[in-house]
């Protein structure tokens, strides 16, 4: 079994400084080689399913995975690290005596698979002694032999490394030429080739691709001892290398250039360098109540923390109490059918199908065909995110299809689907929205974030802050963070721009569980207005 490793990034990194990385280090050329033939995978899967059934399992599923990663890490005009990894193996999950058991192996032989399957059944039987209630699984119709692939135009794994390095060097040069003191840029590529089979009669072959190209630019004022950073506004996506084409029709002109279905990283780096310098002398915000106009490049993270996480059913029920926490959105609130999560303007939905999103797959990791469902409708809480062994607790009959494991060696469990805010029905542009704001702040890009363990109280920063006075943007602000309570915040939502402005943001390394697993998830929205939100000034002076 392979062990989780961490890639240490030196220097001031982008967000997390330790990134998960699993598998064996391989040559670049191996990234484009095809994996095991589907017929062989089916043979192995059937062997495991038959063994499990023979040993007394009432249900079994098998995931045979080949997970490929490529990370390219640079700073200024230097390549610091290039890592390619491959991880191959099989995980088998069973129900025996009404209890889950799981085991995984990288010994892809008939014997190895039989051993792991027996171990999974034995674990289930041993743990059944501590089980309070037997597992109840929502039924799923077998899909037969099917396949799904992320609809990509250019497989990033086939792009030569030299081209990727050239792109990052061009990005870094653009930032340095525009006056940046430092720049760190990276490229993360993921390809999950996963095969799922279950005793329900499904044999599902999927080829999932994801990409993220973050950077961070720093401007240092050596004389005064200050420094400011501006992170890239590109988003992690479920797309191929074509995302980095930066096509004109995907650009939105605002205080800076914003990006939709593709991203011009070089242009953004140049703007970032100029803006990081501008931030050094920007006006420090006066604390108080402001109307916030939040761009999708910022709002995705607020949606993620204040809607995505609290509406995960395992958190609501207490399964994450010792780690990520529980949720304020308790079952009784949902059952009342009247719980006002937000204002009438707020319609939030979950999905695993939006094109270009990180969550998009054809089937989840327990063989459920994916779709979309409402979470909050006209402000009222209507549903949660739940999987096969949970939906019965909501009196529902079908899984929502949001089960995921980050590796063949990890057990699958409920993870966040894409959670997004529906655009406003009435025509409304960002300019029209800003025109009506008397005292406000327009925020672009995600920054510092923190929320309590039941998801009530949160604080968010950002990348770029612009003061709005009497309907006009008057200049840049700094030292801005807003604090609110989830329900109060979403009830202060007064306007949502229309679908022309709808864009996706997302998280590439969302952590949950013990031992911790990562997952990737997108959040879409149009620019949205929230009224009278508490803004604090974050400037402090050290002696």
């Amino acid at each position, binding site marked *: *079994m*392979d*062990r989780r490793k961490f890639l*240490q990034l*030196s*220097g*001031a990194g982008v967000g997390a*400084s330790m990134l998960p990385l699993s598998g*064996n*280090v*391989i*040559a670049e050329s191996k990234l484009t080689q095809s994996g095991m033939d589907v017929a062989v995978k089916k043979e192995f899967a059937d062997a495991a399913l038959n063994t499990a059934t023979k040993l007394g399992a009432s249900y079994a599923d098998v995931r045979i995975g080949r997970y490929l990663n490529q990370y390219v890490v640079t700073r200024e005009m*230097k*390549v*610091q690290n*290039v*890592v390619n990894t491959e991880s191959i193996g099989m995980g088998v999950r069973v129900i025996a005596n009404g209890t889950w058991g799981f085991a995984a192996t*990288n010994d892809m032989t008939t014997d190895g698979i039989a051993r792991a399957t027996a171990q999974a059944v034995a*674990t289930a039987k*041993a*743990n059944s002694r*501590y*089980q*309070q209630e037997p597992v109840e699984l929502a039924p799923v119709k077998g899909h037969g032999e099917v396949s799904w692939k992320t609809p990509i135009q250019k497989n990033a794994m086939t792009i030569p490394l030299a081209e990727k390095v050239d792109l990052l060097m061009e990005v870094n040069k653009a930032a340095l030429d525009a006056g940046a*003191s430092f720049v760190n840029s990276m490229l993360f590529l993921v390809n999950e080739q996963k095969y799922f089979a279950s005793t329900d009669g499904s044999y599902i072959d999927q080829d999932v691709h994801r990409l993220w190209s973050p950077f961070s630019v*720093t401007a*240092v*004022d*050596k*004389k*005064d*001892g200050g*420094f400011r*950073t501006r992170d890239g506004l590109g988003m992690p996506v479920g797309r191929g290398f074509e995302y980095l084409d930066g096509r004109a029709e995907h650009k939105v002109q605002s205080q800076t250039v914003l990006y939709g279905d593709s991203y011009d990283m070089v242009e953004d780096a140049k703007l970032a360098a100029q803006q990081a310098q501008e931030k050094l002398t920007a006006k420090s915000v006066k604390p108080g109540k402001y109307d916030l106009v939040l761009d999708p490049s910022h709002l995705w993270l607020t949606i993620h923390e204040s809607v995505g996480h609290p509406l995960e059913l395992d958190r609501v029920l*207490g*399964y*994450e*109490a*010792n780690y990520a*926490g*529980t949720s*304020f959105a308790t079952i009784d609130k949902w059952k009342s059918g009247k719980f006002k999560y937000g204002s009438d303007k707020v319609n939030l939905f979950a999905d695993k199908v939006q094109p270009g999103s990180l969550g998009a797959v054809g089937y989840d990791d327990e063989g459920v065909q994916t779709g979309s469902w409402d979470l909050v409708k006209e402000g009222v809480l209507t549903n949660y995110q739940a999987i096969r062994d949970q939906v019965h607790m909501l009196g529902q009959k079908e899984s929502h299809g949001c089960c995921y494991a980050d590796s063949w060696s990890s057990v699958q469990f409920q993870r966040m689907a894409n959670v997004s805010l529906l655009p406003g029905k009435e025509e409304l542009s960002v300019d029209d929205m800003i025109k009506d704001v008397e005292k406000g702040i327009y925020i672009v890009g995600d920054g*510092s974030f*923190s*929320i*309590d*363990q039941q998801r*009530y*109280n949160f*604080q968010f920063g950002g990348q770029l802050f612009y003061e709005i006075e009497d309907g006009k943007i008057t200049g840049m602000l700094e030292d801005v*963070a807003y604090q609110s*309570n989830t329900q109060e915040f979403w009830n202060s939502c007064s306007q949502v721009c229309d679908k022309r402005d709808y864009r996706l943001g997302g998280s590439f390394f969302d952590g949950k569980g*013990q*031992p911790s697993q990562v997952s990737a998830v997108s959040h879409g929205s149009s620019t949205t207005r929230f009224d009278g939100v508490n803004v604090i000034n*974050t*400037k*402090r*002076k*050290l*002696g």
Partner: protein
Amino acid sequence: MAILSRSEAKKILDKVLKYSKAEAASAQLSGAETGNIRYARNSVSTSGIVNDIELAVEARFGKKSGIATINEFSDASLEKVMRRAEELAKLSPDNPESMPLLGEQKYMPVDGFAESTADITPDQRAKAAADSIVAAKKKDVVAAGYLEDARSFAAVANTNGLFGYHAATSANFTVTMRTENGLGSGWAQSDVTDFGKMNTAASSGIAIDKAVLSQEARALEPGKYTVILEPSAVSGLVAYMMGNFDARSADEGRSFMSKKGGGNRTGEKMFDKRVNIYSDPSSPSVPAQPWSDDDHMALQRVDWIKDGVVQNLPCSRYWAEQSKGTAIPSPNNLIMVGGDKSTADLIKKTRRGVLVTRTWYIRMVDPQSLLLTGLTRDGTFYIENGKIKYPIKNFRFNESPVIMLNNIEDMGRPERVSMWGGPAMIPALKVRDFTFSSLSDAV
């Protein structure tokens, strides 16, 4: 198979290095057997054992380097992994910051292996969880907890004659107890080398008491308060600060350790004179691997802060050469000197204040001042005239650990906690003017 002895490990490392045709090569062999058990809602949810052993080989040609890994150790596999590392090195771009491999290192002797942890059985894990669940049920509270134990080894060698071997054990337990009405929550942790010294029932008892006592919390106005931060609450902030101790980013002008006009703040008194933080791999309380994972440089006892004065900042060999400084690897453990008072003693001497069990979801707000935000969690109480008066609602704080460590009123006895990058000894602290900026309804 996961744990090899010193001689078994050396044999494999010597053999793989002999296959090298590169200008220089190094190899690291590491293995672990990790066990865990997780429970929630008073019921075991998952348990598992992971065995893993891996050999990583680095081949060097000038400034080019390639790393390959493998988990089979036949002669053919060892030769294959070295060839692959050499191929990858030849294909890789030059790393201008590459430094030559180190020669022989003198590693400190470390005693960090306990048989009781190495021999832990699935039944013992189940019992540890059951002890916690049974205690919870007796008091009508709901337990959620996680125990993870590991026995591991690491061995390093290179073509310049460097060799090292280190074996270790560890066990970490955390538990959250919540009252059935959802109005109370308590937490406790235990981090040990020797599983024989872990008592999950006792830790669970502390968490249960806090859960029961924290029900029906009252709201205090946010503002500046005198606080008693228990060791786990302190460690959240100190971990962030020590994680940002770095000579290069300070010299580059992008750190709270940067000096106005250039350079860094080593030698300056930045903290209360009672602040002493050092690292020492041979510490019996928090034993740690005696070399750096980056380049296998030997770790020594290093003072980071002495009597409030910044003594050293971690500095890579590359940056030491550029800045004409001394290379100091990042530490694998941390010891903050405290006093000999218990938390109860600290409470007794407090006229008005807030007791904080734990800090949570801490994030950087401004790296210039190291301003952090986060929340209190799982047991926050108001203290009046030397006694816990009543439970209070949780707060969000916005505070810099640099300011916090200037406002020390008193220090408690250090306890072992698990921190980023390794174990740490951290005292409870009584601190004045700690900034709570808003209230949280979370229990």
